[in-house]
């Protein structure tokens, strides 16, 4: 057996050696910082891990400690009976209404960008500025715009309509739409560019054929542009859901406590608070993270299943 391994190693030619050497650093990184923690978090989600737990003490525990430490599905049971957990899940779902809103707006923008009109390139740059702006600075800025007494939004509402606007971020009904609008504002330029890339890649011959056949603009859009853009839409929805499910910085900066009645906290906010806040429940937070991960995996898998264009996209 040992001989065989040595033989196998001898067989590696220079090319294979170079190849393996070149991919070694990312593989080490993958094992240490992703695969290792990934497996560890499964284990941790069944324990009462906190920052007091000593890794080296794990193997020297007595019976009582062991019972206290390995708690089976208790984390998950507690999680499902915690109202804040369900609220944060619900909030995360509501924020995702921003994805289709942003997509419609972005598609309109991409169609406009795709027209060869003078000056249109300047607009592309303008719409992309919020995308590259620091998320902290932008969240702090919008926190001001939403300020109940002084904020630009309410001052404008009072000037234009003569009514006093709500205190957007301190109101359980308005805080989610307020944060969602900011996210749409920040993301629309990026989505528009993704659509634009798709539009520029459409085969021109389809359009020529359609024009010769006498199809009007709306028919061309409905029968050619829209179906051919399905893979891009699919990509945007998938990345939007994976990204949206992990949103945290915006609510964290704009509503540090999670909003009135926990109405702005996202699921990752909940995990973060449990793991690094005063609760210091790291095992419990791992369990919550696993629930989130399973939701993401399932939703992504369903989408790959139902999407008619997924084969197309996968090519």
């Amino acid at each position, binding site marked *: 057996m040992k001989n065989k391994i040595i033989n196998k190693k001898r067989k*590696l030619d220079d*090319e*294979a050696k*170079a*190849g*393996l050497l*070149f*991919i070694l*650093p*990312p*593989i080490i*990184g993958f094992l240490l*910082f*992703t*695969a*290792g*923690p*990934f497996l560890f*978090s499964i284990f*941790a989600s069944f324990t009462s891990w906190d920052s007091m737990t000593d*890794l080296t003490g794990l193997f020297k525990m007595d019976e009582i400690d062991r019972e206290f430490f390995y708690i089976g599905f208790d984390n998950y049971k507690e999680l499902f009976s915690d109202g804040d957990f369900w609220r944060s899940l619900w909030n995360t779902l509501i924020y995702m209404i921003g994805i289709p809103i942003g997509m419609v*707006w972005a598609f309109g*923008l991409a169609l406009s960008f795709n*027209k060869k*009109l003078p000056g249109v390139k300047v*607009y592309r*740059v*303008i*719409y*992309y500025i*919020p995308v*590259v*702006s*620091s*998320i*902290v*600075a*932008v969240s*702090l800025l*919008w926190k*001001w715009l939403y300020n109940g007494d002084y904020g*630009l939004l309410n*001052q404008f509402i009072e000037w234009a309509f003569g009514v006093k606007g709500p205190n957007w971020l301190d109101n359980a009904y308005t805080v989610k739409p307020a944060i969602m609008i900011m996210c749409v504002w920040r993301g629309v330029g*990026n989505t528009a560019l993704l659509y*634009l*890339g*798709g539009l520029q*890649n459409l085969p021109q011959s389809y359009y020529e054929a359609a024009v010769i056949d006498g199809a009007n603009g709306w028919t061309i859009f409905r029968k050619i542009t829209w179906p051919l853009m399905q893979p891009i839409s699919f990509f*945007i929805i998938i990345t939007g859901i*994976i990204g949206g499910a992990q949103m945290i*910085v915006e609510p964290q*900066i704009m509503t540090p406590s999670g909003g009135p009645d926990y109405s702005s906290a996202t699921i*990752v906010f909940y*995990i*973060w608070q449990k*793991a690094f806040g005063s609760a210091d429940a790291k095992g419990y937070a791992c369990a919550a*993270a696993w629930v*989130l*991960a399973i939701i993401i995996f399932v939703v*992504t898998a369903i989408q790959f299943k139902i999407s008619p264009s997924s084969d197309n996209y996968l090519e």
Partner: protein
Amino acid sequence: MSNANELARYGSQKRNKTLGNFFIYLFLTLGALIMVIPLIWMFFSSLKTPGQFLTTQLSLKMPSNPQWGNYTKRVWEMDPKLQRGILNSIIISFSTIIVGTFVSSLAAFAYAKLRFPGKQKFFLAELATMMIPFSIIMIPQFIIYARIGWLNTWAPLIIPGMLGNVSMIFFLKQYMSGLPTSMIESARIDGAGYFKIYWSIILPNAKPAIAAQAILWFMGAWNDYFAPSIYLNDPNKLTIQVMISQLNAMYAIQTDYPLLLTASVLAMLPVLIIFMIFQKQIIASVAMTGLK
């Protein structure tokens, strides 16, 4: 008859086109205003005095007596020191990206052009990393970093990045696969080693793609907030993004909001400048991401 019809149709189409273009510009301009008004407001507000700031919220013009001192002097006197945060962010992002780009492009070259056992498996394993939510691995990572004494140091922000960036490896692999293999073969016949091939053939040919990826990475690293906010708490080690969020919590009580907005503008500026310089390449490479 049909000719006249055609002509009439052509005329109305032309009129429709002008009208259509007008609405396109209107749609684009209204949206563009929504995009930039908050940012313009931010810049002008940063030039006001605290008193002015509270009384002239609605004005979108340069204040009559712009407080340039906010930028030249006062913002640098805040505590913790903003200049320290900027320097920290520069050190962290540059060291990570320079080493990480080298490592990632080398790995991408191996995946694109070299034959070695387990290639597909290794590549798939790395791609799978992109699917794993950060919140799953962040807690075990934190426990590991605490164990090996990396908390409150820059190591968790630098070392993993130096070992390569998965999305960069993926994009560069795609790009390098398009380079002709014959170049490599003839270099092999001339007796060049694989690293030499990477260095003198692949690297020069993939330069534009590597540069675009490195710029995108820099923008992400500079704006990163969540990870550094977990690992750092020593005021002298904070990145600029964590620092402005902490400054806000501290200085908001003193109601010196223009000064806080000045700090925020400065935190945004480096990436905005880089974006303006390279906007053509950045926009082109973002537009391609959906097509991969």
